[in-house]
């Protein structure tokens, strides 16, 4: 989670607390730190693992997200990401002529969490980054005393309203969460084919979608981030899926085509 964090409306002490929280999440949930709790859980061969309270709470949020999206946003895609070649810090991922590894479809329904005891089949490798960053944004916003915002790598939570800039231009006035998911940044070559980090849990391979980026506004950053990933993965069905849930979505196809769903047009005011 090597991201820029911006906190608007934070004092010195709050800024320090925000930085400490993000650093903690990096230590616990990094896929690339060999001694992170996530790495230790994934390396464990036992059928049951006792995890920290933070780990359990985050995994619960990830399983809830999987249930809410019908498994589109799946926390068991660690092996699929590694097979696609995303097995180190993104800055160190380089083109690789060898073919991608075996596909690893999602298996979130096989994961059980009872309190702090985790059970999962052998070979399931968790990746909780689908929720970790957005959760951290929501939690750090709560550290502010008054109006303000927190942004981490483009995931934003706002209290008291703020003008938020959008991909490819334009800006809107937002209260709550805004997040953008897409494939314009984390892309790489493996076996001569373009890979990216948004995995289709059904195939265990990088997803095909009509969209390049999807931005969602929702009550919280976590809601927005999960919905943006799901809407991206749903491709043509993404705008309607968001409307059915009363969530506002803005979709980019290529560099120029912008599509908004009904909820976005009705509820997200442009900044004048």
């Amino acid at each position: 989670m090597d991201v820029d964090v911006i906190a608007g409306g934070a004092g010195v002490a709050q800024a320090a607390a925000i930085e400490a929280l993000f650093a903690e999440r990096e230590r616990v949930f990094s896929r690339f730190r060999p001694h992170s709790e996530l790495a230790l859980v994934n390396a464990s061969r036992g059928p049951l693992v006792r995890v920290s309270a933070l780990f359990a709470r985050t995994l619960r949020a990830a399983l809830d997200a999987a249930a809410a999206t019908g498994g589109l946003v799946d926390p068991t895609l660690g092996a699929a990401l590694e097979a696609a070649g995303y097995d180190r810090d993104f800055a160190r991922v380089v083109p690789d002529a060898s073919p991608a590894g075996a596909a690893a479809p999602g298996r979130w329904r096989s994961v059980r969490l009872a309190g702090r005891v985790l059970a999962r089949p052998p070979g399931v490798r968790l990746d909780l980054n689908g929720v970790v960053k957005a959760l951290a944004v929501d939690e750090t916003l709560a550290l502010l005393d008054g109006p303000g915002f927190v942004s981490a790598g483009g995931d934003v939570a706002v209290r008291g309203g703020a003008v938020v800039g959008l991909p490819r231009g334009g800006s809107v006035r937002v209260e709550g969460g805004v997040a953008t998911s897409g494939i314009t940044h984390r892309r790489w070559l493996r076996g001569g084919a373009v890979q990216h980090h948004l995995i289709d849990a059904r195939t265990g391979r990088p997803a095909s979608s009509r969209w390049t980026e999807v931005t969602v506004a929702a009550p919280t950053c976590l809601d927005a981030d999960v919905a943006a990933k799901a809407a991206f993965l749903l491709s043509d069905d993404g705008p309607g899926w968001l409307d059915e849930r009363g969530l506002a979505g803005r979709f980019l196809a290529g560099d120029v085509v912008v599509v908004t769903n009904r909820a976005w047009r009705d509820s997200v005011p442009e900044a004048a």
Partner: protein
Amino acid sequence: MTRLEHARRRAAGAKRALTAASAVGFVVAMLLVRSAHPGHASHARTSSAGISSSSASTSATVVPEVTTHVS
């Protein structure tokens, strides 16, 4: 009109002007606080040790205070 009445009218006029000035000042102060507050943004990078304060845009109308993007 007596000198006393002139003095009373001058005092009443000054009081009205003061009240109006206070109201304007209050509104301006509220707007400044509202728009400037999120502008005092602190930036950090999770892999770095330090955190520093910097000034983001303070416009509350056109210039975004923060941007959403793919990371």
